[in-house]
């Protein structure tokens, strides 16, 4: 009895230790790559922060080390940005456009996704595929025909035109995310709601939206990011400073011919990047939950 116990115990110990060694190696390799990735992606923001805290003189001085601040930290670049440029106008315009676009996108895509994902009707499959196909057309191609449309509507050089055209980028993808999310909700839930006496609108507002909240947040973040960072459309459709948005405004007003106001550019880019950063930090968990929903059952 004891002899067999010893005989079986020995190989088992060897198996667990090899398993542990295997795991240690996997961890080492993952850490190496994670650190490499972190360095790779954090270098540009670091460079931006350092540059934005320098004086113009230090930035222009070719002999200094660009990675460190030698002459002391100064907030001059930020003061100049807020007082001497139209940065605050761009910021306000971007906020207005983004809020409107996110609201329009979410209303349209939640309703579209609910009807396409849950209410089987003739042609719903084709329509769902069609919506996704529109997402495959890049904005760098789309802006030419859209230019005609925006001009015909009299919205050229108005940020309200952006409120109209950004949803062509956000709605298809958000609808697609939401279709996937709604489809992952068990069918019995709508049936239970139907039997409980809910109509389709009540089913959507009382059951689907609360249950699919992680997906809705993920879609919201996506719509927010796209309209906050859009570049091609404002570049093509907006040309006066009072209508301009952050992305294009910062670049066009702070780069004059071959004069780059590096300090202000970096300060502007950092301030512009702050809102998405804050939103990501708060909603990251929801965002991940939303994007991976339906990947596994339950």
């Amino acid at each position, binding site marked *: 009895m004891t002899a067999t116990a010893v005989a079986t115990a020995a190989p088992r110990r060897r198996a667990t230790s090899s398993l542990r060694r295997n795991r240690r190696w996997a961890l080492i390799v993952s850490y190496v790559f994670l650190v490499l990735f972190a360095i790779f992606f954090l270098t540009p923001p670091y460079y931006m922060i350092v540059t934005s805290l320098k004086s113009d003189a230090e930035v222009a001085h070719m002999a200094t080390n660009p990675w460190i601040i030698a002459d002391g930290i100064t907030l001059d670049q930020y003061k100049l940005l807020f007082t001497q440029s139209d940065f605050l106008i761009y910021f306000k315009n971007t906020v207005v456009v983004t809020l409107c676009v996110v609201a329009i996108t979410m209303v349209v895509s939640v309703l579209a996704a609910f009807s396409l994902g849950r209410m089987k009707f003739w042609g719903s499959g084709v329509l769902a595929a069609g919506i996704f196909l529109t997402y495959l057309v890049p904005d760098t191609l789309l802006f030419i025909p859209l230019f005609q449309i925006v001009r015909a509507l009299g919205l050229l050089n108005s940020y309200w035109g952006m409120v109209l055209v950004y949803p062509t980028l956000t709605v298809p993808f958000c609808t697609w995310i939401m279709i996937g999310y709604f489809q992952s909700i*068990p069918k*019995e*839930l709508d*049936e*239970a*709601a*139907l*039997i*409980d*006496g*809910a109509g389709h609108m*009540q089913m959507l507002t*009382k*059951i689907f939206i*609360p*249950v699919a*909240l992680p997906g809705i947040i993920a879609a919201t973040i996506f719509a927010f990011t796209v309209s906050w960072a859009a570049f091609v459309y404002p570049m093509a459709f907006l040309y006066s400073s009072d209508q301009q948005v952050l992305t294009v405004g910062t670049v066009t007003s702070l780069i004059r011919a071959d004069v780059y106001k590096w300090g202000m550019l970096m300060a502007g880019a950092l301030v512009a990047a702050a809102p998405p950063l804050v939103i990501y930090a708060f909603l990251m968990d929801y965002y991940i939950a939303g994007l991976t929903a339906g990947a596994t059952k339950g």
Partner: protein
Amino acid sequence: MADVALRHVVKRFDDVEAVRAIDLDIPNNEFVVLVGPSGCGKSTTLRMIAGLEEVTAGDIYIGGELVNDLPPKDRDIAMVFQNYALYPHMTAFENMSFGLRLRKVAKTEIRARVEQAARILDITDLLDRRPRALSGGQRQRVAMGRAIVRNPKVFLFDEPLSNLDAKLRVQMRTEIKRVHQKVKTTTVYVTHDQVEAMTLADRVVVMNNGRIEQIGAPQELYHHPKTRFVAGFIGSPAMNFIPCRLEQNGAGPVVRVSDAIALPVPATHAARYRSVVGRELILGLRPEHITEPRRSERNERCEFSVIIDVVEPLGMETMVFFTVNGQEVCGRIDPASAKGPGEAMLLHANVDHMHLIDPDTQMVL
């Protein structure tokens, strides 16, 4: 508080006929169980009663009213689903009261009804919890509570216990029966588990291939199955089916199972089988009717000797398996008299409970 009637109800999915013209009458307050193997059309039938599937042909009446074109919410039914289908973002209380809130029932009334249902189901302490914080059995109780508070005309259960582990299933089965005794309501219950069907039902509806094989009280189905399917489906372990030949000898008809084994047909059955003498048939005999010879019911003509293949002790009784005429047969014997595998054993067939099945029509004669 209503009766349910199905008249020639048909359901077709594209080319597949899931339910083939079934007729069923469920009187007020009766507990009816639809049972059958998966794909037999039992769930589809239930969903048509609920209004979750459209009827291809035929009529469904609830409380005398034709409901074919009524949406589920206007049929005054409540349904309990296999996976509970609780709203994950609502507490147990909110889950149970959701239907009442949609119907704009007064708040005090809602509270009273939910609390009463919670008392019946013994979940008063759980009303503030979300489904995630409940165990499988507790979720099932909340799902039943959601049905009870609505005070519907008909309860529909779609395999409500399949997701529970074996022990909890038995417990909840008793619970459902207890609830039905307290809250008298017409109930249609779907399951693939014949034990559940037998224990719960006032009447069992056995379905197969979209048709109703037989409708009857549990005991009736057990003792008087009409078809081979029902005979084999009801009862556990399943009835033995052994190819045989009905022969006439001096003392009366005998069932010839093999060269060595011929069982006498009891006098009460002889007249019924007169027309099939000389034909190849199938003998149906339940394991509990193949035992060791017992003094009280002993009839030497019904005894036969076999070599035991496999022995399965269950404690109270022991199952023995042996081969007759190339067919594996199961007997249910007293553990004290069980022999080991490979040994010969004398067994006794209780022929009073035998069935003869026509192999062509699959009907019990």
